């Protein structure tokens, strides 16, 4: 396997070198700004740097640790100063915002030459091409709608992994009666919203698209949204009273060590769980969160690199080389094994290279959901609406989780009001 990967790497290098040679005299250079300063993610980025240098480029990086907002603050000041970085890790609607002010570069030529349109998942293509041209390259696909269950509790009570929300509620009633916590959860605006993403999606996929992808306020006031909030209220009842101040890693451990039955969270859990020594199939099952409409569902989140307009010919060449390497199957494998996600190209074979069963399952479900037309982007993870709408919605959702005096009807109206206020 090692040899094949190396051979592929060589292939990428040659391809990269050919692209680079297309403009005579230019030496590909890049400076990538990203937020992966520590741990396995930093290692994965270091790998990108090595591949870049092997392909003949000069690699520089600016790692800004901490929250995405730190990266945005630096980017903003650089752009205002007329000194935009060549490549920046950004996601979702932020790509469109920077594209709208005319700051992004155009990668159409390279994308056409390498056939990106045919291999990238369709919901993702629209994010990378905000106005019809490729301005960004996707690094991975995270699945947000994973349900992790505790085999110990399910077996003890003779329960199946629930497929619909009704089954989920019935299972929770039994689990609670047996003295276990049903849902492990750590309350925070993003995690409450991650759970709600799965609820709305699983109950009514059209509602999800209208309310969470298009920010349609009428959809937010609809009966469907009220029902979804009622389901969320029910689920808060299935949680224990320690949800505030608990991290998602602690919630994960609760489920995987058999204290709680279920945990709803994205696939980055897989990387952390395996690192903590939990074993797939023994300590946890992974499956999609319940859907009432049958079939395969996939809520997508993706990291990507956006390319900004450059004047220096060397950096323009460098962008093409970097984009080409990011889109290469070799990089996608290395990066995603480390991150617990799956490649952004659907044509990569995950049975080799160290992907776990859950990751392989993720790719199959992704393909199936593309087939069935059920693929959506995650609102909770900043893949759909502008940050100002997302922030306003997250406030309402997290308040609803924290305050049980808010009724589902009130919450649905507050959600719509909060969004209307920002527009």
């Amino acid at each position, binding site marked *: 396997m090692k040899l094949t990967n190396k051979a592929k790497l060589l292939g990428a290098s040659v391809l990269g070198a050919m692209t680079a040679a297309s403009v005579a005299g230019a030496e590909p250079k890049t400076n990538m700004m990203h937020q992966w300063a520590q741990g396995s993610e930093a290692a994965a980025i270091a790998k990108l740097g090595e591949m870049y240098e092997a392909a003949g480029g000069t690699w520089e990086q600016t790692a800004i640790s901490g929250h995405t*907002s730190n990266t*945005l*603050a630096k980017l903003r000041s650089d752009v205002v100063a007329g000194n935009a970085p060549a490549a920046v890790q950004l996601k979702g609607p932020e790509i469109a915002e920077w594209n709208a002010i005319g700051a992004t570069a155009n990668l159409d030529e390279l994308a056409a030459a390498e056939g990106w349109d045919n291999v990238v998942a369709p919901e993702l293509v629209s994010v990378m091409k905000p106005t019809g041209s490729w301005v960004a390259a996707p690094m991975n696909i995270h699945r947000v709608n994973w349900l992790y269950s505790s085999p110990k509790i399910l077996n003890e009570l003779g329960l199946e992994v629930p497929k619909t929300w009704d089954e989920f509620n019935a299972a929770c009633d039994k689990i609670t009666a047996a003295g276990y916590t049903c849902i492990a959860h750590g309350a925070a605006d993003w995690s409450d919203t991650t759970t709600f993403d799965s609820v709305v999606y699983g109950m009514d996929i059209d509602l999800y698209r209208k309310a969470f992808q298009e920010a349609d306020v009428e959809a937010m006031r609809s009966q469907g949204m009220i029902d979804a909030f009622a389901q969320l209220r029910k689920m808060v009842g299935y949680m*224990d009273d320690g949800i*505030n101040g608990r991290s998602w890693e602690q919630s994960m451990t609760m489920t995987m060590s058999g204290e709680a039955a279920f945990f709803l969270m994205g696939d980055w859990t897989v990387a952390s769980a395996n690192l903590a020594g939990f074993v797939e199939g023994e300590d946890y099952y992974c499956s999609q969160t319940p859907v009432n409409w049958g079939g395969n569902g996939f809520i997508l989140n993706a990291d990507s690199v956006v390319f900004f307009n450059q004047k220096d010919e060397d950096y323009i060449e460098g962008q093409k080389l970097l984009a080409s390497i990011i889109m290469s199957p070799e990089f996608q494998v290395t990066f995603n094994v480390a991150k617990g996600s799956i490649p952004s190209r659907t044509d990569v074979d995950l049975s080799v290279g160290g992907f776990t069963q859950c990751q392989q399952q993720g790719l199959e479900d992704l393909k199936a959901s593309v087939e069935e037309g059920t693929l959506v982007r995650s609102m909770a993870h900043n893949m759909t609406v502008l940050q100002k709408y*997302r922030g306003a919605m997250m406030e309402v959702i997290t308040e609803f989780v924290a*305050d049980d005096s808010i009724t589902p009807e009130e919450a649905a109206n507050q959600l719509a009001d909060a969004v209307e206020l920002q527009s």
Partner: protein
Amino acid sequence: MQRKPALGSQGWANRLAALTPQMVLLPTLIAALVYVVIFSLWTLWISVSQSTLLPNMAYGGFGEYASLWKSKRWIVSYQNLFLFGALYVSGSIFFGTLLAILIDQRVRYESVWRTIFLYPLAVSFIVTGTVWRWIFHPQTGVELALQDLGWIAAKFDWITDRDMAIYVVVFTGIWHASGFAMALILAGLRSVDGDLVKAAQIDGASMPRIYRKVVLPTIWPIFVAVTVVLLQFAIKTYDLVVALTQGGPGVSTTVPAIVVYDLMFQRGQIAQGAAAAVMILVALALVLVPYALWSGWRARKEARSHG
């Protein structure tokens, strides 16, 4: 009567000597002018501009203020600013004074006590918040300890209670700042003339009465200094809340600094973030302007009564 300066080189030298302090202060004055006044005006203009993701200087009206005041999170955070500020400053001063008076009784191992009480200030807000989150959290802290001791019905879940969580923040803040208040007030107590206390003792006043009527009133400028320092801690509180409660449950412990940061750097709403920052300035003015008026009035009154 002012003496007329003699003409000639000696006069110039004198004038130069008189100007030296002003010239030394000038750079600081300019820096303060730029950083405080100019940047405040700049923020004010941004808040009524059309800025979104990037600053845009075109005039956009007061719409951002209207949106801000319709947001539940902002209203909660603004209330929290006043509640937290008032309780945090008064609580820290109260406990700081108490500790300072106790230590002032010439206790044994005084420096050890002083170090212990001053120590919290050396701990960063992030560490303070994280540790107290563990202590307050029902599943890791006091409640668990009591239950492990056998008191099964023990309940101590303020941090997960919407109405009580802000008091958890206040408590932690007071824990952090009391030592600081103590150190300054203790230094003040030590500077009080011992004869004053002896005179009061001879007059037959009890110790509590001496402190209340004689010692503490003489060191009031120290209390003003402590209040001003703590007040600016209170207004810029950010990391303590982020580490302790993340602004939760829900939005119940959010403070304005968190909202400003989110709006400006996370949501690409620079104008609304600037509007929120201006409102923080207004909050500060609400406290400081009446104080300035009061102290001005007091100074005039004293001047009259002594004159």
